[in-house]
């Protein structure tokens, strides 16, 4: 029976399991060390949760095409693969929480940030109270992911990215507390969260083209930050006047949600679960379609519907596999 992902504010049991599961994965040694992953500095153990941080950083460094520029498009962002890649990431994190809790009924909860956006983007919204994610701070000093002096059970950020975008060790290898800085003004951040009207606008986007193909609603050439479609609008690049939706949430939350090491903040997965929920709504409205298909040139290898979602091809999953995961999970409600 498929899991049902629910609003974290309506499912305290899922919230508690998520917080407990993340805490356990932060302490589960992988048996590998930082040097195994080419991360400079002192040799330190790497824990299971931090594998997801490293994965996200590395995927963001792989350009599509392989000899291209990761700032044009990469294996996780800035192109149509953004949504299927993060759907796979959510499933693998969800499975690891199930495993470490010994509870196959665990389903990732989502944070419906548009409800907070509709409410004026309060920095003291329920999600940021100590019973959920805790609040903002440098470091965060309340809730389950706070950093408390002399507490050996501190939630510790260990892997981060430097100003050059490369992975590095936080605190020169000693780690540090989580940082959140809500609603900083542009260009440091963004003052508001997306609203339900913003989500509706992304979902209802239709191409300005006299003879659009069905998949043109999703994305169009050149499949980048510049191409207009549901994907680019949900990711937050278009219209290019300001940050939107997904990107806007990263900028509003600030701190550790700004770099490519953003999975350091456990709210990352609640955020992306809501992004995924929005994609699921689109798939149910317009059909389980995707573009580019396999006739697209090698320029887009890694983005096409039958390409594997990661390199090397050690995982069998493709964007096509991610279009219908209803036997794995569903949502309690779609926008």
């Amino acid at each position, binding site marked *: 029976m498929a899991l049902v992902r629910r609003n974290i504010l309506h499912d305290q049991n899922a919230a508690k399991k998520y917080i407990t599961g993340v805490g356990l994965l932060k302490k589960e040694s992988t048996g590998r060390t930082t040097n195994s992953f080419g991360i400079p500095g002192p040799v330190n153990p790497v824990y299971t949760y931090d594998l997801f941080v490293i994965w996200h950083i590395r995927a963001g460094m792989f350009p599509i095409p392989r000899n291209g520029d990761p700032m044009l498009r990469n294996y996780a962002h800035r192109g149509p693969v953004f949504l299927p890649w993060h759907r796979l990431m959510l499933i693998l994190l969800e499975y690891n929480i199930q495993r470490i809790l010994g509870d196959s009924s665990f389903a990732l909860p989502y944070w419906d940030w548009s409800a907070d956006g509709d409410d004026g983007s309060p920095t003291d919204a329920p999600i940021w109270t100590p019973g959920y994610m805790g609040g903002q701070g440098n470091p965060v000093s309340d809730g389950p992911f706070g950093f408390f002096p002399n507490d050996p059970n501190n939630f510790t950020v260990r892997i981060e990215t430097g*100003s*050059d975008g490369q992975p590095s060790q936080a605190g020169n290898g000693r780690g540090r507390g989580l940082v959140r800085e809500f609603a900083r003004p542009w260009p440091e951040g963004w003052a508001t969260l997306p609203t339900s009207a913003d989500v509706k606008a992304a979902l209802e986007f239709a191409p300005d083209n006299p003879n659009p193909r069905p998949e043109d609603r999703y994305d169009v050439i050149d499949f980048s930050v510049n191409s207009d479609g549901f994907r680019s609008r949900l990711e937050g690049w278009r219209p290019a006047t300001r940050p939107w939706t997904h990107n806007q949430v990263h900028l509003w939350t600030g701190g550790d949600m700004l770099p490519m090491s953003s999975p350091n903040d456990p709210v990352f997965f609640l955020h992306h679960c809501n992004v995924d929920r929005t994609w699921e709504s689109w798939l149910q409205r317009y059909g389980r379609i995707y573009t580019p298909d396999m006739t697209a040139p090698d320029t887009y290898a890694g983005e096409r519907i039958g390409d594997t979602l990661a390199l090397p091809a050690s995982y069998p999953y493709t964007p096509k596999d991610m279009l219908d995961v209803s036997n794995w999970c569903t949502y309690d409600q779609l926008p």
Partner: protein
Amino acid sequence: MTAIDPEEVAAAAAPDTLGRYLAELARPAGEQTSGPAPSVRTTEHQGQRITVTTTYDVVVDGTPVTAQLHVADSGMLYSPALPYHQFTSALDAVRALMSTYPDHFGGGG
């Protein structure tokens, strides 16, 4: 459509599998280097080939900045250190980098 196989998920999600895969990626081809890197924009116009190469050399308090700035065909600026931002102003980009990475800029932020 292919259904998700829980056994395949378990195999792919295993920390050892994920760790081994990421260790293989440690030094990927095409990995970015530090320091200024050129953005090359090309197009054709009236049968002629245009190439525009742009390099941002950023200096803060006399010290060269290792953060990279790229300019896309649209003219928007991006930095791998701020993957969710896009800028119309290089000065805004550097301001955001300095606020996000104060320790990398002498801690002035």
